[in-house]
């Protein structure tokens, strides 16, 4: 959806046409749901977060100044709604203790079957913290720039760069560890 179309819809909502909001919900619900699902890894919670995000966006539509993309603004609401939801419900992430990388396994991921790769990545993502998963999702899925991610998460640009770097490194290490553990269990 083009930016001017979004602005026009927002204008209609501000004038009292609440039904116009349905267009925005239809357009962005998958995006918000995907981010929420990646962060909390539970369909029911992700749906709740998605609903709350849109309700908050509707209530705060007057505060959208149009300086950033609507999706960025909506993601920002979604990100913080998810963080609060996770804190409130105390959704825990699994901690992985060992991050030692197996030798000569740098490209081991290539050798796995596609289905196994997906399974491994999915599993590895579960070991990241919610905010790390959010940053990784925004970075890969939406291909947002560091500046946009900083705007969404309200982190400093330097912090975002470090977080992305560390999350990717951590993810890589976790994948290697998981693969090593799997190999050990087979042997």
């Amino acid at each position: 959806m083009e930016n001017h179309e979004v602005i026009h819809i927002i204008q209609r909502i501000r004038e009292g046409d609440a039904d116009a909001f349905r267009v925005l919900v239809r357009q962005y619900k998958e995006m918000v749901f995907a981010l929420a699902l990646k962060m909390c890894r539970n369909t029911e919670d992700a749906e709740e977060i998605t609903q709350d995000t849109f309700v908050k966006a509707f209530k705060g539509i007057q505060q959208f100044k149009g300086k950033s993309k609507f999706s960025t603004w909506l993601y920002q609401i979604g990100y913080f709604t998810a963080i609060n939801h996770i804190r409130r419900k105390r959704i825990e992430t699994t901690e992985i203790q060992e991050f030692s990388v197996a030798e000569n396994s740098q490209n081991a991921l290539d050798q796995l079957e596609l289905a196994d790769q997906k399974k491994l990545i999915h599993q590895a993502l579960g070991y990241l913290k919610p905010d790390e998963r959010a940053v990784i999702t925004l970075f890969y899925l939406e291909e947002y720039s560091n500046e946009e991610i900083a705007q969404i998460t309200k982190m400093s640009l330097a912090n975002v760069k470090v977080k992305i770097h560390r999350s990717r490194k951590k993810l890589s290490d976790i994948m290697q560890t998981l693969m090593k553990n799997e190999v050990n269990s087979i042997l």
Partner: protein
Amino acid sequence: MTEKEDKILKDHIKDDFATTEVNTNIEEKIMEKISSSKSLYDLPLVSKSVRRFFMSLAIILPVIAIIISITASPTETEIVGNVEHKVREFISGPFITVVGVVLIYISIDVLFRYRKRFKKV
């Protein structure tokens, strides 16, 4: 993370998103929540000028009341000179003013909200 791993991860996340199915009811649920939330609390309040007037009253009146209570008849306060008297003086002065203004504002606000709600129905 190698370039290859990076690409695999990117593809996985994109692929995962493409296959993510959102509950079809979610749109209806959101619209329902929006319409129910705006029925009472999201209706515009009393007009902005009325709100501003009451806000100013809520700030100015207690300040005036406090000034009066401090400056008025200090000798009398000194003569009586007990805490009970000062508390009674405060309750009958600034405290009542603040409570009064707030109560009036809330009543008018609620009245307007309900009036608009019934009008809408």
